[in-house]
């Protein structure tokens, strides 16, 4: 009945070696009504891995608001889908590729980008923009320069070759990532509303087609690697790194979009984590069908792969699709014209079971939905850290003896310095859609053929999240909304990459639960649905976990692109207005962390009501064309934001006066933004702020070669050229690359 190859015996120990617990093995035995063979065990271990099943996170993820007036598809498919007007939809998602990138940063980040792009075009949408949220450790930590260089080259290497612009992202440095860097890749695609594809198999007798690169032993058990922490033995796991081929994927992208137009494709899914297993099983599971696969027909890159290896291989640039019986030739013709291999490897059945045959025998015979829809769900123990009250004690904030020096020192840190060294290695102008590229608060691309634009941004502050995951989660959402508002964009949805440590540790599960709560609260208050996302657990090395890092990527629609403000000063003589409330809030602040190596205190309050009013005001002002400049405040507070606003294409100074003094210039109170308006519009802007309930005060005007600040009876004056020099050279200097 079962295949006899020299494969390990199936027992609790061998099951554990591929990531299945003893209970999970028993559960599988119950489902099958017998002992599983090695292939069946492998299939299950992949489907029930954390990465594929979300078993530790599901109970919390249910809390996310996933519906909204524009949402066509929430979580559960390859990517989320939202209506963006004019008959178009945006399809987007973010995915992590943390563990492979730590081992082999170039290929790890390459394949991370490749994977997320496939998730987009498998839905029928042409990817038009990418972003990346990166977290590195201290630059001087072992291997870190090698990792940074590799990751940036890899992201560029894939996106540039595919001809998809990388228009934004976020890069942070913190020692908590010394042993676990984070590479989260986001992609957004556009399609006509009525031309979306789903990965839901149907129609007994419909053929299952395999298209793309051949199958090798790449990444076998990559899904399980993502579900395990690093330790000294991780080094031996090296062979599991997959190699990306962006050229083949570009061909695959064009061929898939063309094949989809034949109308002969019923369902399509890319082969990502757990390759052939997850793609075929998930498609069949969603459709409630069964499937029969003839493994002898799977195209192999090298001979001798066992069924186990074939089903778990994570060779890249492969898709699986269900075609309409009788019309498969139409589909195959398209792929062949593009030079791609396409093979009929089986068919959809109505048995609800997966029957895999190999060399004339049954390699696996396993029911589908019990594996895909009824994966184990865990309620991991949760425990608030015992020293939380300690952590929340307000820090003692040293006053800067010389605010100008403090400013220059902060601008010189990799964390706050300009990131141009990174994004200049990404093609951000290909496709002639980029209205605002990297370097601003949000990226803006054209929705071609319409007067509208799409805006997108990535945000999270891991230090806030460590001290108060609930507040930190809410803050990430609030900042994203603020960023979008600065370009006049109304949010339509968000996707996330929830990067955490080991959920089997109660404090980590507590962090996760709280972060999800905070995100959910902010999403409800700010009317932003969560339409897709990804969870990455086990980001821990030798027991030390990363800070909770729930990265948020949010997308918005700008109804009209006329008179878009810049994130920096563009006209001399504009009046500068500071919106929002100034308070003294230093919990987890960059000022304390970067200048005094002090991390302490509850993060700044997130007043969702105030954020909502500020966002509405900004959107309204942008729509009316009243703003030349709009830039929100975040890490480093007011003085950092003011300096950043001076660093436009033509650097420009400002003369301002504020009531904040000393360290308060770097306080990180939320819900604030800087705008610069032509003098004739000042009155109108201030009135609008009053009407909409947003505190506003004019603080000065743009112009001149110096940044001149009157505060607390003192005058700070610095040449913008000097500040700009410090800020723009700090990162390449620190990297020495």
């Amino acid at each position, binding site marked *: 009945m079962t295949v006899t190859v020299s494969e390990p015996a199936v027992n609790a120990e061998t099951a554990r070696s591929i990531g299945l617990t003893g209970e999970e093995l028993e559960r599988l035995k119950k489902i099958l009504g017998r002992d599983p063979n090695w292939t069946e065990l492998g299939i299950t271990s992949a489907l029930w891995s954390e990465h594929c099943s979300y078993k530790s996170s599901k109970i919390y993820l249910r809390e996310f608001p996933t519906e909204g007036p524009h949402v066509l598809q929430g979580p559960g498919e390859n990517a989320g889908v939202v209506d963006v007007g004019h008959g178009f939809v945006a399809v987007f998602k973010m995915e992590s590729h943390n563990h492979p990138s730590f081992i082999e940063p170039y290929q790890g980040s390459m394949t991370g980008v490749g994977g997320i792009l496939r998730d987009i075009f498998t839905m029928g949408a042409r990817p038009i923009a990418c972003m990346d949220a990166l977290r590195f450790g201290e630059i001087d930590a072992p291997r870190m320069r090698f990792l940074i260089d590799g990751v940036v080259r890899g992201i560029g290497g894939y996106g540039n070759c595919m001809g998809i612009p990388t228009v934004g992202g976020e890069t942070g440095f913190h020692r908590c990532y010394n042993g676990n860097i984070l590479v989260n890749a986001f992609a957004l695609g556009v399609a006509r509303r009525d031309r979306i594809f789903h990965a839901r198999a149907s129609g007994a007798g419909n053929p299952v087609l395999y298209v793309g690169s051949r199958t090798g*032993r790449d990444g076998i058990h990559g899904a399980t690697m993502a579900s395990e922490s690093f330790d000294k033995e991780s080094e031996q796991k090296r062979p599991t790194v997959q*190699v990306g081929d962006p050229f083949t994927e570009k061909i695959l992208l064009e061929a898939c979009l063309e094949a989809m137009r034949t109308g002969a494709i019923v369902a399509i899914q890319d082969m990502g984590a757990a390759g052939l297993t997850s793609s075929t099983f998930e498609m069949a599971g969603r459709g409630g069908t069964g499937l029969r696969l003839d493994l002898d027909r799977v195209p192999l890159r090298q001979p001798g792969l066992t069924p186990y290896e074939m089903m778990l291989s994570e060779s890249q640039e492969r898709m699986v699709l269900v075609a309409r019986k009788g019309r498969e030739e139409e589909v195959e013709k398209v792929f062949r014209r593009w030079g791609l291999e396409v093979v009929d490897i089986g068919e959809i059945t109505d048995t609800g079971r997966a029957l895999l045959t190999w060399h004339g025998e049954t390699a696996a015979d396993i029911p589908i939905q019990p594996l895909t829809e009824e994966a184990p769900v865990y309620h991991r123990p949760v425990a608030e850290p015992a020293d939380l009250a300690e952590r929340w004690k307000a820090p003692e904030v040293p006053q800067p003896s010389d605010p100008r020096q403090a400013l220059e020192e902060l601008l010189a840190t990799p964390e706050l310095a300009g990131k141009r060294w990174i994004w200049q290695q990404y093609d951000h102008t290909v496709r002639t859609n980029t209205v605002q590229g990297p370097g601003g608060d949000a990226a803006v691309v054209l929705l071609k053929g319409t007067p509208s634009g799409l805006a997108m941004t990535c945000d999270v502050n891991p230090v806030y999240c460590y001290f108060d995951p609930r507040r930190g989660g809410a803050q990430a959402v609030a900042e994203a909304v603020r960023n979008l508002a600065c370009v006049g964009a109304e949010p339509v949805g968000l996707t996330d990459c929830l990067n955490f440590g080991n959920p089997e540790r109660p404090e980590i599960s507590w962090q996760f639960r709280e972060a999800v709560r905070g995100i959910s609260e902010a999403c409800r208050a700010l009317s932003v649905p969560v339409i897709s996302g990804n969870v990455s657990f086990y980001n821990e090395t030798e027991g030390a976990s990363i800070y909770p890092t729930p990265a948020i990527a949010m997308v918005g629609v700008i109804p009209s692109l006329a008179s878009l403000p810049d994130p920096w000063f563009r006209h001399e003589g504009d009046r500068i207005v500071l919106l929002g409330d100034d308070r003294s809030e230093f919990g987890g602040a960059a000022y304390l962390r970067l200048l005094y190596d002090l991390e302490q205190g509850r993060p700044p309050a997130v007043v969702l009501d105030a954020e909502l009013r500020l966002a509405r005001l900004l959107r309204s002002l942008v729509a009316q064309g009243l703003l030349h400049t709009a830039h929100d405040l975040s890490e480093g507070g007011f003085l950092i934001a003011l300096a950043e606003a001076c660093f436009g294409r033509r650097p420009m100074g400002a003369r301002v006066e504020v009531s904040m003094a000393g360290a308060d210039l770097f306080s990180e109170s939320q819900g604030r933004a800087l705008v610069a308006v032509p003098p004739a519009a000042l009155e109108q802007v201030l009135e609008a702020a009053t009407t909409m309930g947003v505190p506003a005060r004019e603080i000065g005007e743009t112009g001149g070669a110096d940044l001149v600040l009157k505060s607390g009876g003192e005058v700070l004056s610095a040449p913008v050229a000097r500040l700009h020099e410090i800020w723009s050279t700090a990162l390449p200097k620190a990297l020495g690359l």
Partner: protein
Amino acid sequence: MTVYPRREILDPQGKAIRDALTRVGFPGVDDVRAGKSFEISLGTGDPQAAESQLREMCEKLLANTVVEDYSVELLGSSVESLGTDGIRP
């Protein structure tokens, strides 16, 4: 020394070159692997020391052993010039 992508790993470049060779009139080509070749002249006359040094160079820098294999061949003591730097990647 030569550095090649490891046998089990996908070599996208080799694959593209093989397809191109087929198109240009060489259909019998089964497989192509594209790698790099380095010629390094060392000051030492001791072949064992040289080989061990060269292997270390590969491990530390010239090959990414996660995805590449390397082989070292001693060409003998020669005073042939290799160009302005000793290494031609």
